[in-house]
């Protein structure tokens, strides 16, 4: 029961950010949606690690938390006018 509520809330949030990514009028809107989707995904990976009870799954989440913002920074540099 716990898991249905928690994973349901997070999945609904992911659906909303994907909708914003598909609809968003300008490119920065989409990047904002993808950036917060990355954060939501990091939390989701940790929660799934608890659900499946595997310690090694936390490493993936760590890599994600450390690396995923490089993509956001690259796109932000592009929008500013230099790479």
């Amino acid at each position: 029961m716990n898991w249905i509520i928690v994973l349901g809330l997070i999945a609904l949030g992911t659906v909303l950010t994907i909708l914003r990514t598909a609809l968003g009028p300008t490119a920065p809107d989409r990047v904002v949606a993808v950036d917060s989707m990355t954060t939501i995904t990091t939390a989701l990976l940790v929660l799934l690690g608890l659900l499946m009870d595997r310690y090694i799954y936390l490493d993936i989440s760590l890599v994600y938390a450390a690396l995923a913002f490089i993509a956001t920074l690259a796109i932000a540099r592009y929008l500013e006018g230099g790479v």
Partner: protein
Amino acid sequence: MLTIIGWIMIYIGATFLFLGALGIFRFPDVYNRLQAGTKCTTLGAFSSIVGVGLVHPAWLPKTLLIAFFILLTNPISSHALGRASYKSGVKLWEGSVIDKCKEFEECQKKEEEQE
């Protein structure tokens, strides 16, 4: 006892993650979306990750490290995105009150050839 506290924190975190996504969907312009997307998802991710650490106390150090990374990198990326979207010429919402950015030259978009 720790398990119950951990589950409460996971619930709070999931709720805030959902509210952040809802804010991204509802708010009218990029800057307000950035506000909702940064604050709510940072606290939501922080709370649910530390909650997992409390449910499973042997995992606490690594979950604290992940939460610390999120706390450090999320404001930086949102700051870069906000600056980039101002420089690329995204207008503020029409209900905005004041725009001090116009007084500074560095904020304005640089005119350049794209070819």
